């Protein structure tokens, strides 16, 4: 939805906000960078970045080494200030290594991120291979992997054979700001404290010169009180042989991360950025501190489990080189191997890193999924088309838009209500004039088998006549300010409180508010949208919460990036509870963290109706997919500004092939429902949406896999073609699963696009014309305004429902058409997943169908992939289209009962397309079609 900003509100808000808005707007469309910190303006980032690579002051005290069945512990000492750290090393099941570094004896506990890992990751034993005064060598189990701990200076190297996979602190940038007593309060406190704690730091006094920003920091008009002083941490990672790193969303930047030398590091700090710009490393709404490295040899991942403000520096010894320079290296036999160096800096907490050793992309996805869980399996309808706008004004408007879709024969599943539907921005309520009968409205939608989403933001209007506020206040559930009172800030309703979602009791209470008898006017076809959950605080520093605000004992500083995850979690739990645990929830959130994938969908926030924003939607969602969040989308049409008709059409065509498919628009833009741009454009949009609906079985199957095994739905090409270097920085096209390649048209006035079809010796079929193209080529495709270049991989079988109806629910029992795209070796394989589409019965009672389709030796068969499961469907197979086929003399359908029947078929010789007429078999049964 909406941003932190609209002038409309100023009329209803106090003068304070008006001033703030005036400052924020300053009449331009671009982001006001001055509102957000650069590394230089963030004291800890500046301090840490001032440290240059060199000899590390840290030394491992090998005599302190302890090795148990589950972990190795070892003390580290900083020779400059004698502060000791405790290193813990774990070998985790599934080829991962966990490195934890904390102060040995911190003044007070440092924050360790809870609720992100789905369990205590199971370990595998480490064994000591050798040990001398310089260090120890540990075996990491399989694959001749070793972990070498060097003592002086301290460093870790993970080797496989003779190859170094990854080194930690090889550049000496491990820096751990220990907690300390404030110098100017030292004397009065001195005698109350144990001298033991204190002596080391006294000795090292010279090293601890107090720098600006250690104990207090001011940005614009906001002062951060920093009662705990400096607490930041930093560590470097070197990746020999690696030229490509990805991930660490959310940034509006290319898929392949750029070197940050000479600029700002990538920043991870959940912020409500008004009118963000593309192609820059500024922080956005969400943060997932996970980076993937990839080379033709290996894919690995680094998961930096820290929820504080984080900056990531990337440098590469090849990044600056031109292609020519690289050629020269090659020709001249340059000895330098490519290497990428990465450095993570966080404001507080501890170092807790999971090194996922791959070696394949699929392995890394599984490894990360084993730590933080997988994508929530959405209700099928959530994968269909969503119609949103800030705002659909009233019940009549909702009814009219709903009718508009039927009048123009465009399917849709969800209509959304933004903040204006509430009674004065009091969430869980309805505007009594505009939405006097919400249940009538919802029933009207239900009658058409459609659904609604209403917005519930986490800022709560401070208003003693508002039940939600009163309960939160009386239960003490609000976040507290540093002085201990309820923290208050400005947001849509005016003065607002922010519930402490880190508190499990608070979350339980929040979840209970979604019960049908609590959320008045709600019904089972109404779902939820959590916007502004960074949290957005209009008058806060960088439009978010003060870092010294308190969540229980912890500062917002420690867990800022987790807040949004908790909001979405509590909401999703509420939706599950209201149905007695039966129904799958659907919750969209703007802010997120590692693990957010377990709770629903995210979108790329308040983008703009510009071609650049359409293009950036691809790398933004690809990056999220790589780190677990598959259910991603961008506002179709662009949130701010008004798209040209061409841009809107192209955005629908692109969005139809991205996971979360929702049109949205700012309050101040003209209406843009699909039928408002003339019959031709209506037809183009209708066609794009219909293509989405026809492909829903495949989407659903991909999401089942994402849920089941953590594989991303929308994938960069290199994930499936890891050795094809041509694909490594590609982000204008993508794969859906393995089998569909999409190259949306994202250029204004395009007459053609050049798509790269990967795979030497493979073939791809244009899904619209069935034309066959060879893999491993750049294919120029002439396009018109109706073109959506999509290709099916030869060797795959994709199920569609060709009978597109007005909502996905209406298509539940419809038959399938199988598209069998033969590989050059006349082979193909595919799957089909079916369940009830909306409950947890697939999981709890194994009520689902999972079929494997195989085409080999001129026979196509359907076999059960999940013998333990059971589910019956009315759906049947109405048509089989075999691409790249030759003409058979006959086609025989065989069913398990021994019956055989001949199928009629058509053969299109020009395209080599064989269409088998009406097999008619139930989609849940075994069958075989033999071609002769």
């Amino acid at each position, binding site marked *: 939805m909406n941003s932190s900003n*609209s*002038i*409309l509100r100023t009329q209803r808000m106090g003068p304070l906000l008006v001033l703030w808005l005036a400052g924020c707007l300053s009449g331009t469309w671009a982001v006001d960078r001055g509102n957000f910190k650069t590394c230089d303006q963030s004291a800890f980032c500046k301090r840490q970045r001032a440290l240059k690579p060199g000899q590390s002051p840290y030394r491992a005290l090998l005599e302190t080494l302890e090795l148990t069945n589950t972990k190795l512990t070892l003390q580290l000492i900083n020779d400059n200030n004698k502060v000791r750290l405790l290193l813990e090393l774990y070998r985790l099941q599934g080829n991962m290594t966990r490195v934890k570094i904390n102060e040995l004896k911190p003044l007070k506990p440092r924050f360790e991120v809870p609720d992100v890992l789905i369990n205590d990751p199971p370990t595998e034993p480490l064994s000591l291979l050798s040990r001398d005064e310089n260090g120890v060598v540990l075996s990491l189990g399989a694959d001749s992997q070793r972990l070498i701990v060097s003592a002086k200076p301290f460093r870790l190297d993970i080797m496989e054979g003779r190859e170094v996979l990854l080194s930690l602190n090889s550049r000496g940038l491990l820096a751990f700001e220990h907690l300390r007593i404030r110098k100017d309060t030292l004397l009065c406190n001195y005698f109350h404290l144990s001298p033991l704690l204190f002596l080391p730091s006294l000795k090292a006094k010279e090293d601890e010169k107090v720098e600006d920003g250690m104990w207090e920091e001011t940005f614009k008009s906001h002062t951060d009180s920093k009662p705990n002083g400096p607490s930041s941490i930093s560590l470097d990672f070197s990746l020999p042989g690696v030229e490509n790193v990805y991930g660490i969303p959310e940034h509006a930047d290319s898929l392949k991360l750029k070197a940050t030398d000479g600029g700002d590091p990538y920043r991870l700090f959940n912020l409500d950025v008004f009118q963000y710009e593309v192609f820059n490393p500024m922080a956005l709404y969400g943060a997932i501190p996970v980076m993937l490295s990839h080379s033709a040899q290996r894919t690995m991942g680094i998961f930096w489990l820290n929820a504080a403000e984080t900056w990531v520096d990337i440098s590469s010894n090849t990044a600056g080189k031109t292609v020519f320079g690289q050629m020269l290296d090659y020709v001249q036999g340059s000895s330098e191997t490519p290497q990428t160096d990465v450095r993570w800096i966080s404001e507080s907490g501890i170092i807790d890193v999971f090194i996922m050793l791959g070696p394949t992309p699929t392995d890394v996805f599984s490894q990360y999924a084993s730590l933080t869980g997988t994508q929530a399996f959405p209700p099928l309808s959530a994968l269909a088309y969503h119609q949103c706008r800030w705002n659909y*004004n009233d019940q*009549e*408007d909702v009814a009219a838009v709903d009718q508009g879709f039927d009048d123009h*024969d465009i399917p849709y599943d969800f209509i959304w209500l933004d903040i204006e539907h509430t009674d004065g921005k009091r969430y869980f309520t309805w505007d009594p*004039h505009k939405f006097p009968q919400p249940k009538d409205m919802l029933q009207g939608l239900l*009658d*058409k*088998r459609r659904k609604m989403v209403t917005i519930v933001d986490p800022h709560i209007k401070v208003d003693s006549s508002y039940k939600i506020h009163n309960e939160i206040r009386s239960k003490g559930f609000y976040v507290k300010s540093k002085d201990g009172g309820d923290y208050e800030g400005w947001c849509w309703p005016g003065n607002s409180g922010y519930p402490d979602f880190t508190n499990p009791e608070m979350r339980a209470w929040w979840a209970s508010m979604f019960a049908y008898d609590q959320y008045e006017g709600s019904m089972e076809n109404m779902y939820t949208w959590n916007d502004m959950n960074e949290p957005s605080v209009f008058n806060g520093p960088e439009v978010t919460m003060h870092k010294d605000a308190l969540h229980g004992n912890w500062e917002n500083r420690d867990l800022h990036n987790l807040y949004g995850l908790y909001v979405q979690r509590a909401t999703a739990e509420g939706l599950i509870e209201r149905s007695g645990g039966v129904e799958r929830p659907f919750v969209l959130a703007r802010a997120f963290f590692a693990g957010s994938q377990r709770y629903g969908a995210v979108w790329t926030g308040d983008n703009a109706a510009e071609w650049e924003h359409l293009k950036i939607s691809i790398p933004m969602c690809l990056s999220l997919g790589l780190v677990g969040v598959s259910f991603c989308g961008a506002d179709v049409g662009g949130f701010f500004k008004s798209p040209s008709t061409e841009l809107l059409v192209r955005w629908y065509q692109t969005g139809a092939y991205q996971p979360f498919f929702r049109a949205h628009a700012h*309050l*101040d*833009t*003209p*209406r843009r429902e699909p039928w408002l741009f003339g019959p031709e454009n209506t037809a183009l949009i209708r066609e794009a949406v219909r293509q989405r609906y026809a492909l829903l079985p495949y989407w659903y199957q991909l999401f089942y896999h994402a849920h089941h095994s953590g594989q991303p739905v929308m994938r960069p090409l290199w994930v499936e073609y890891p050795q094809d270097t041509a694909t490594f920085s590609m982000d204008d096209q993508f794969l859906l699963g393995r089998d569909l390649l999409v190259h949306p048209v994202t250029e204004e006035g395009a007459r053609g696009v050049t798509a790269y079809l990967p795979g030497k010796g493979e073939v791809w079929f244009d899904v619209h014309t069935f034309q066959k193209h060879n893999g491993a080529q750049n294919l120029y495709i002439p396009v018109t305004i109706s073109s959506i270049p999509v290709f099916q991989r030869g060797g795959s079988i994709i199920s569609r429902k*060709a*009978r*597109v*109806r*007005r909502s996905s*629910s*209406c*298509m539940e*029992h*419809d*038959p399938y058409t199988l598209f069998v795209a033969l590989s050059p070796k006349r082979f193909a394989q595919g799957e089909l997943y079916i369940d009830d589409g909306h409950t947890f019965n697939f999981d709890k009672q194994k009520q689902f169908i999972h079929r494997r389709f195989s085409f080999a030796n001129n026979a196509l068969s359907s076999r059960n992939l999940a013998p333990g499961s059971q589910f019956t469907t*009315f759906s*049947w197979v*109405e*048509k089989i289209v075999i691409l790249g086929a030759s003409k058979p003399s006959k086609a025989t359908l065989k069913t398990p009962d021994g019956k055989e029947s001949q199928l009629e078929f058509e053969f299109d010789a020009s395209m080599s397309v064989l269409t088998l*007429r*009406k097999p*008619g078999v*139930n989609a849940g049964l075994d069958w075989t079609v033999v071609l002769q």
Partner: protein
Amino acid sequence: MSCALLLLLMSLALAMGTGAAVEIQRPRGVPLSKRQFYEENKPFTCLDGSSTIPFDRVNDDYCDCRDGSDEPGTAACPNGSFHCTNAGFRPTFIPSSRINDGICDCCDTTDEYNSGATCQNTCREMGRKERESLQIMAEITKEGFLLKQQLIHEAKRGQEDKQGKLTELQGSKKGLEEKVEALRTVKETAEDPEKEAKERHLKAWEEQKELIRMEKDKTRMAEAFLELDDDADGYVSVAELQSHLELDPDSDGSLSETETQGLLGGADKVDTSTFETVWSGIKDKYLSEVSQGQSEPPAPVETPQEEESRDFVSDHDSDHYPEDYAGEEDVEDDEEDDHEEEEEEEEKVPPTVQTPEKREDDEVSMPPYDTETQSLIDAAQKARDDFDEAERALREVDDQMKNLEKEIGFDFGPSAEFAYLYSQCYELSTSEYIYRLCPFNRVSQKPKFGGSETNLGLWGQWAGPEDNLYSVMKYDHGQGCWQGPNRSTTVKLTCGKETVVTSTSEPSRCEYLMEFTTPAVCQEPASLDEVLHGHTEL
């Protein structure tokens, strides 16, 4: 489930003149008009001719024809359509995708024959309701159309009236112009002798004033002599004059003897007659000993002037303030009239300012004109007044003509049926705002509970579709929106007996939609009437 539903026999009761029912068989979803293409047991040729299939593949839930014509009764073809007979209501086509989708689309329930949806046949009820509403609409249309005739008639008459008035005005304008010219001559003729007489009077008065002035000077000289002649010896001596430092010729602060002698024409003392020449040299500087030290700004004259000018300014302020505040957009038409009046006032104001200035000069007032002059002046003034009067009348006629021409020039529809809306306003009150539509002028919105009025658009043009241009009015260039366009309003006109705004909405930010009923858009109801008659008689 492959529910290959083949031919479904539909029985359709067709009401014939005799009331006999005939059963006609046709596949599900086929309209009667296409029945002949679906002949049982004969191969079916797709309606686009693309292929021919055995008849058992019609409605077998598999799409064989590219045009979808083989599956009129199933959802198999993406581009098919299904015909609902809807006996008792209107027959209709729905897209095939709505067959058996669990949602009742046809009021006769025929679209949901295998979905488990429980649909009620609502055709009769809908038919009844439709007939009722058609009846009501027809009545409204009928009455509305009558009213429209009246409106057209009135408009025609109004137009004629206006035209007549315009012609009349043109006539009277001519007369007035002549009158103005005649009166201008009269005025000018009367003003010449007036001017002469006035000048004569003034000249005499100037001469008289000069005499008085000279007399005064003489008196002052005599007084000065007496004042200076301290020893009363009949002479003014050097010593006696020396005390008057203000006469110092070189302004060095002292009046030396030589300097004083110089003032006295070289003599040591002068008598009254010689003083006459001395006086002419010093009278401009000379300060009377009596008035010296006694400050003398007798300013009572200025006070009234200041007050008056302040009044004038503040008057102006209070007139202009609201206008500035409200912003240009908020100047309403009736306000415009005020505005014009005000401007006229402005023109009238300056003379009242000048009056006090004149008064200031008048230490001694001019004697009244003699009767002869006065009568000339009176005559001239009357001529002037007559002229002004005539000219104002002419201007008024001009204005009236301009307004009339504007009104006559307006596009009030093909038969000027919308003319009656001109210079009218219609309001609609919602929970928050009062909306005001002044056709052919402007649309505005005013918060019910305080706050200033917002201009939602000024009359733009008729904006209906080509075949129905006069069904939509467009008002644009309203108050600007933040980061958006200027506000605009689309007014949709529907037939009604009354002229009333029935609804307003803001479907898109700053783009308003207003529904407005008026008899002026009611269409000739003849055909509808016929239909209704048919129905009722049945």
